[in-house]
């Protein structure tokens, strides 16, 4: 059983801190995704776990073993790279067998095991091919088989899908996830695609500037973002400035947003009292204008609208000029349906409040 522990990991190049105190315990068998924008330190953290980068301070534990000072080739990991990194002069069979040969496995074992793993990734019968004779998706499957066949303690993947085209990417998600579940391999998966992260992971760590901003299950991160940054990086969110008014009798916090009162959950306290309201487009109500807005409501007009079958997206400009995006699902009758229509937007208790400073 390999529980992965990252303890106070810091990494700096010169006076530039790439990783700032990363702490995380990842249970055995978890599909753990590092999600964040370019340059936030995802690759660096992954390479710290692999051993290609030594942390400036802190420790990496695989189960009970402290591997901080263990050379990469002794860590028993598997890696999948963005550019596949297949050995171009070796056949698919020899690529997959590479790790087994390094472990001095008998040729008989290898002849049994390689086809088994090629089948797992849907490439039975491709053993004799050279990497150059395969498509991108097929190459990445070979890379996956090559990494998994050694039964690594940790599987590390750095944007393995970003060289593939969109439809293949979705298909490969399933391949990777089902193999990971089948082998129950602790996995760290790096991506900057939030949809990928939400679809595949047991846990998502949203990174920003060398820190993990928030970590949790996909639905938890989506429903309960602790910061404005997480709310807009995972899924989309309307962010409107809010002023804290106080608590109602039932203990719910009340805010003033654009002159109307809205109540909702406060995710964390702002020291300076300045908040942002987080409203997911699908959590907002929209109806045809029918008089002055009440509590928790704001008026505006439809700037554009896109009908997409099962859902409709609205871009609404409020009276004070702020932009709000709204999505409705299913029947749209009863809603305002034309460009330029006056509408009323209603906020509900699903709206969240986060400190403005957490953007």
């Amino acid at each position, binding site marked *: 059983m390999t529980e992965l522990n990252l303890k106070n990991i810091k990494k700096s190049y010169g006076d530039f801190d790439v990783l700032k105190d990363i702490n995380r315990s990842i249970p055995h068998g978890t599909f753990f995704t590092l999600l964040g924008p370019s340059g936030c330190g995802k690759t660096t953290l992954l390479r710290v776990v692999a051993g290609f980068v030594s942390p400036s301070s802190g420790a990496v534990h695989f189960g009970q073993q402290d591997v901080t000072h263990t050379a990469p*080739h002794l860590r028993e990991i598997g890696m999948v790279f963005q550019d596949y*990194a297949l050995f171009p002069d070796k056949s698919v069979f020899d690529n997959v067998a590479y790790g087994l040969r390094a472990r001095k496995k008998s040729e008989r074992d290898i002849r049994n095991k390689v086809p088994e793993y090629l089948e797992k990734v849907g490439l039975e019968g491709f053993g004799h091919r050279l990497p150059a004779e395969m498509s991108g998706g097929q190459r990445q499957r070979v890379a996956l088989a090559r990494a998994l066949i050694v039964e690594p303690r940790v599987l590390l993947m750095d944007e393995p899908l970003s060289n593939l085209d969109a439809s293949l990417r979705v298909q490969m998600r399933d391949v990777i996830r089902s193999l990971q579940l089948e082998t129950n391999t602790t996995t760290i998966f790096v991506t900057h695609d939030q949809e990928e992260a939400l679809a595949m992971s047991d846990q998502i760590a949203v990174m920003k500037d060398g820190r993990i901003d928030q970590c949790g299950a996909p639905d938890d991160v989506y429903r309960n973002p602790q910061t404005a940054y997480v709310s807009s990086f995972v899924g989309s969110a309307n962010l409107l400035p809010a002023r804290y008014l106080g608590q109602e009798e039932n203990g719910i916090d009340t805010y003033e947003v654009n002159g109307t009162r809205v109540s909702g959950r406060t995710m964390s306290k702002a020291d300076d009292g300045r908040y942002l309201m987080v409203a997911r487009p699908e959590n907002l109500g929209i109806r045809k204008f029918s008089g002055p807005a009440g509590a928790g409501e704001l008026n505006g007009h439809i700037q554009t609208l896109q009908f997409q079958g099962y859902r409709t997206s609205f871009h609404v400009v409020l009276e004070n000029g702020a932009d709000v995006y709204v999505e409705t699902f299913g029947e749209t009758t009863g809603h305002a349906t034309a460009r330029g229509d006056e509408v009323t937007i209603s906020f509900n208790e699903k709206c969240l409040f986060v400190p403005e400073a957490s953007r």
Partner: protein
Amino acid sequence: MNRFLPWGLLSLVSLVFLSVFVAYPILGVLLRSFLGETGGFSLNGFLIFLTKGQYLEALFNSVLLGVTVTFTCSVVGVFLAFIVARYEIPFGSIIFLLPLSILIIPELISAQSWIMVLGNNGLVTNLFKAIGIPFPRFYGWLGLIYVMTLTFYVHIFLAALAALQGFDHNLEEAGLSLGTTPLKTYFKVVFPAIMPAVLSAGLIVFTLVVGNFAISITLGQRVPLLSVMTYRSFISELGGNPTMQSTLATVSILLVVAVLFLQKRYISKRNYQMVAGRTPPRKKLKGWKSFLASGGAGLIIVLSLLPALVVLIGSFTYSRGPVMYWGEFTLSNYARIWDFNMGVIFNSLKFASLASALGVIFATLVSYLLVKKRNVLSTSLDYLLLLPLTISGTVLGIALAHGFNSGPLVLTGTAGLMVLAMMLRRLPFGVRNAASNLHSISDSIEEASVSLGVPPVRTVFNVVLPLMAPGIAAAAILTWVTTVAELSASVVIYQAGQETLPIQIFRLISSDLMARASAFGVINMLIILVPVFFGIKVMKVKLFSS
């Protein structure tokens, strides 16, 4: 445990090697040029250089020869490149022999063969004499410019051809559609576009001419040249005061450094690269134009390859002293080699194979360290590797001979020094080739291997070296070719019993024994040709890819 240790250690070893065998001897030459008769600091050497007319004259001649040959090479090279790139000529397919010809025919043999044709006892000279027409003296400026042009134009031809083939035909058509005549279009659009390539190749030709030894000394007896004078001062001063030869060597180093500097400035300033565009279709020519184009190109090609033929025939020709009896065939020239001179062949094979093996291993190692494992020593290594480019073979020979004839490490007179000299001359090119090879191998391939449990050093052997193999083979062949033909450095440092084929040929030419020299020449060319042929045909090595 420090996992960076093996690479750091290897970098250090490489650095020490280059410091001891390149930097130290060259520094010695520079310092000795400031040494007075009594041993203290003195500018006497430079004073003599500037005041005694012969030295300044030699410098002037060398530069003049360099400029002239660069110009003639540019004319010939660009002309040929145009015809090959744009027109269908009947024998277009044998053009690929041209780059091979500079490999297979060493410049010494080229000079020798032209002496056999146009020299004092030359075939054509005697023909003219028989008819009664006076033939111009070949030794001197005429011969130097003629032979050097035929030897070095290929550099410019290849550069211009590559530039022309990469030139976007659309631009040319745009020029034509704006109403300019084809000829004007060439001058206004095409020439400026290929100019940078031609110029940088031209600077290479210039340094080759200025540093040239073999052709200069065989054809330039009447023309004082810097490289020949440097060699002569070494031969005559051997054991005596080394100031003057060091001064001459320093001057030629400065000359080359100046040119390299110029090249760097020029290239970095005008580095607009042509987007590889549509290659224009080759046109068919008709009438006198066709005659001119294919005739001109054909003449150049024939003249480039003729030396091999002349030497081949010469080697089977009966001779007495300097007099060749053309048409009377004999095997005696080869028989003499078989009876007396097999050692020369063995020397060449021994030195060249050691130098090639050593050079390729070292170049592969250093390029790997420089590309994949950069550390604090890398920049110094980069600079040290540039040093051999700044010195001609003659200067390298002098530097090594003086650097290691006393002190803690005495190598003068050993075979090791011969091998070292041959290896060092090719090293910068070897490293450059291997490095460009390595740049195309992604780092993640190595990391993939390491992550699968293979230690870093074994990873290099498992996955990097197999990918470098074609490049290494090409480098090995090119190193072999240049070391087997190496004359200018080895002729400075060789001792009795260490004669190589080029040295032997050089001595025979000096004694005007052309038939015997020819036999050695044929053997020399064969030794070059066999691995080249084997590499291209059997191993499918691409010699001219980078």
